[in-house]
């Protein structure tokens, strides 16, 4: 990406940086916009050959257990379906991941698609983060049912999302279609109000 033009995140118009605090204090909910996270949609039947090829490119094999994530070296793979994963990379690394996957998966029935710009990621943490999700998400998010490393596609309020629990604290990354990001952020903010909300930098 050229440096000459400023890239705009899906939530930049909300000027969250101006509201960001360094120490969330005793806020029940802490939110941030994770800008420019790389995202790659990976399709393919999880045969041994496919998993070896993808694993060779990623450094780990995409998980086959439904609704779980795996990862290494800052890259993770979220199981979305029996033949579909979302590969998540640090900002700017999606290109090399795409090239690596395409190179190793050549000749197989697979698809590697850059969807980095199509989804926004909202970080949601804090002691009351689970309650905020419970207000709009029909998944069972109880620690017995949904733990760090689990992910699932669902609805949150009126948006389709992928929820990825990143820590037992709890902390979540919520992936939402870019065009819905403004709605979802404002919905989350509204839902978090009663618990006290702090915005931090992504």
């Amino acid at each position, binding site marked *: 990406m050229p440096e000459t033009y400023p*890239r*705009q995140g899906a939530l930049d118009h909300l000027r969250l940086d101006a509201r960001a605090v360094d120490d969330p204090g005793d806020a029940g909910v802490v939110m941030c916009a994770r800008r420019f996270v790389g995202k790659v949609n990976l399709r393919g039947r999880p045969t041994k050959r496919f998993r070896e090829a993808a694993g060779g490119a990623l450094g780990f094999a995409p998980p086959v257990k439904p609704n779980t994530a795996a990862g290494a070296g800052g890259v993770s793979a979220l199981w979305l379906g029996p033949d579909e994963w979302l590969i998540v990379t640090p900002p700017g690394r999606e290109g090399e991941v795409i090239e690596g996957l395409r190179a190793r998966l050549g000749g197989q029935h697979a698809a590697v698609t850059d969807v980095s710009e199509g989804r926004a990621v909202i970080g949601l943490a804090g002691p009351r983060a689970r309650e905020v999700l419970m207000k709009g998400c029909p998944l069972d998010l109880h620690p017995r049912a949904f733990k760090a490393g689990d992910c699932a596609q669902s609805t949150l309020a009126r948006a389709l999302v992928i929820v990825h629990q990143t820590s037992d604290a709890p902390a979540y990354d919520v992936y939402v279609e870019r065009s819905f990001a*403004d709605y979802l952020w404002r919905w989350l903010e509204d839902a978090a109000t009663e618990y006290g909300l702090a915005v931090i930098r992504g």
Partner: protein
Amino acid sequence: MSRQVNRRPEGGRIDRDRSLGFTFNGRRYTGFAGDTLASALLANGVMLVGRSFKFHRPRGIFSCGAEEPNAIVQLGAGARTEPNLRATQIELFEGLEAASVNCWPSVEFDAGAVSDWFSRLMPAGFYYKTFMWPARFWPQYEYVIRHAAGLGRAPAEKDPDRYEKFHVHCDVLVAGGGPAGLAAAFAAGRSGARVILADEHSEFGGALLGLGAGIGGKPAIEWVESTVGKLRGMAEVRLLPRSTVFGYYDHNDLGIAERVTDHLGPAAPPGPPRQRLWKVRAKQVVLAAGAHERPLVFADNDRPGVMLASAAQAYVNRYAVRPGERAVVVTNNDSAYQVALDLDDAGVKVAALVDLRPAPEGPLADALRDRGIDVLGGRAVVATSGGRRVDAVEVGRLNDDADRIVGGTRRINCDLVCVSGGWNPAVHLFSQSRGKLRFDAAGACFTPGDSYQAERSAGACNGAFRLADCLAQGLAAGAAAARDAGFRKGRAPAAPKAPEPEAAPLRAVWRIPLPGDRARGAKQFVDLQHDVTAADVALAAREGYAAVEHLKRYTTTGMGTDQGKTSNVNALGILGQVTGTDIAGVGATTFRPPYTPVGYGLLAGRDVDHLFDPARRTPMHAWHESVGAVFEDVGQWKRAWYYPRGAESMRAAVDRECLAVRNSVGIVDASTLGKIDVQGADALELLNRVYTNAWDTLKPGRCRYGLMLGEDGMLFDDGVTSCLGENHYHMTTTTGGAERVLAWLEQWLQTEWPRLKVYLTSVTTHWAVAAIQGPNARRLLAELCDDVDLGAFPFMSWRDGTVAGIPARIFRVSFSGELSYEINVPSSLGVALWQALMTAGARYGITPYGTEAMLVLRAEKGYVVVGHDTDGTVTPQDLGMDWIVSKKKKDFLGKRSFARSDTARPDRKHLVGLLTEDPREVVPEGSQIVEEVRPAPPMPMGGHVTSSYWSAALGRSIAMALLVNGRNRHGETVTISLPDRNVRAAVTKPVFYDPEGEKLRA
């Protein structure tokens, strides 16, 4: 302010240190914390609380809970006012204001009460019989009926309160926190299961709060407190007081309405919501909803002062209120005996206990007799007297068949009549869950039969009316539910002892006969809220409405806000009697959610204001806002509609935008177009199957327009698909069709064509799209792009390149008929691209244009918009687009339907152009074309206008229409019928601008 004349000097679960002032019908009273509005009114000597729905008869507090038919009040004023609340369930708070509903000008003097004098003229089905004809009078009838109908007033202002929702899952949901529910929650909770215990009252304990019963040798309330304490100590048990389980839906999905701060009134803190809707998915459900006492049906049984026996008991015990001074208890079963004893203990004079059963015996009867209370066996209260309150009952002797009163009647003075006709298990939730009810002859009540979902009933709602049975069933059900939810340790703890005397069977008498001298006239009420009498039920049966569902609708019994909790079973019993069927054969009506009314605010939750529906934003949205664009909704998208300059009108702005495109260059945000990445060895095969045209010849770097049809051969979506490389395509869809098309293709791939090797990925929002259109588009692009040979970049092709330093995918396609480039860049760079184009385009007067200009431009070219010019009944041939339907392909979706005679006939409605005789006339879209003008409808119709605009480029109006046989009628003049006049227009080809397409390919 009046004194609490009926408050007992001590006792009750009220806090006498916290006095609360409240207003009822404009008068000030005081009660105590722990009171309900009903108990506080009774403490103040207020029994008359409302007027009945139809006859406006005076009505008093009848129950102490959810079943209340009479004490229906309007709570609060202004924006927070809430109609149809039960005074028996409203917790008292300081400053509470309530008023009776359904009376004017006041509850003491109600003008509507004249309807009682004419009540002989208002039998069941009165409205159906009276207001049916003549039909043209209906508007007048409706006005009168609407004025007379309804209880309470909806607030006129916006609800200022906040309502929230929670989705929650659990192993065991226990509905009801009485003895059975507490026991069930305890047994389930100790297994480690995730348990939710919800109860509609402010505190747990259910009926035990109003009984003097004992458990394990101690007062029952101690057992309640200790059990609640244990439950609080269990980490995975969630206790929800003030929470009504109101709905039981499929797959053990239940709704709970929690009243979080309602009981605090104006003192509610600002943070938490007023109410919270819990949407619960439970592995197992234990229903412990208790039972409602059943009234007895006798003449004038609706007078204020007639009350359910158990309610009177709860008022004296739980609320320390004497609901009367001198009581007559009338019963057909044992439970009311303890009521008589408790009333006597509370200082209410019990004038007599009247038992329908011939020879009352046993320790309770002895206890009453020991206290000098008359126990009158084999008798019934046959009628009451009094004005705004009962002042006496008449007691008569029942014959053996209970269908006649033998001998004379005896008058007993009293101001309180406590009635018990047995108990109805609260099977509402069980029935909602689709469980089958069965009739229990011994209890003369419906009890849960076969379960349909993963639930079990325990306690009184299961027909177990003895405390020891409630406890044992609760423990067993809780343990079994936990076990079935996967918690193996769920063994039921031993039930504590709760001694009670052996109960004698009840005597079911659905309708107490009138004394022989009064066969007509006196009303024996079945449904107090809807004023349905035993005679109405009999009349309905005589008139052929003998099926329960007919009976309900004809008489409206059970259709009030109380949903017939005290009336339904009596109505069924009487219907059975009248029709000579037993009640089991009559059956019960369907129970539907909600158990008690829930407010719309609760159901809406936070789906209000800006959160009502998502507003989808394109990457350039903020830019459009910053220049004052007016937006329109396209599905959930907000799209720039037009960009007014200063005070410019919409018409002027759109004209200016259109002319800029035709004469120089315009720019439009096309980011919302659906985009699907298609990859795989069979990608081409998929395209051939879903589009009407052939795709084999499409080479990398080229684009092709395609139509998708449904199986019915009708237009479904359209768009341009480009070949990115071998086995790799970029498909575009309409804005509104993006999700629909992806789901449609996935459905075919997953269900019908699983062998096709194709993967589809939505990339709609990965790309921001700025389309530059107009004769200067190439010059503009050339200034920002030096790595694409624009001279060798023909129409319907695409190139990868760099625009203003941004990596871009440029498609040379057009929806305006002008030279056009759709420039796709990663979404985060959409604004950067847009601004670069605006800056570089300034010298060409680049003009941002919105969706309205886009529609005008395409209409000038005769391009259709799927869903605008088509409506699901239009084939490609109807649009004159045969050229895009392959004759060679063996098959594609929709092809087979072209052979249907109706699809193949030549005189279907065809797309045509219309030019009005008056070029300034822009007819509204949707206008009807009539084949023959008559003075008034109906007229033979020929079709309708699908698109209609002012064309600035042509200096006149243009329109498109679907017209019968239109393709063969070019040159004809047709008439468009508007509400106030007719407009004549010439039929033309649907292309108005640059018909040869020279500009497009320039």
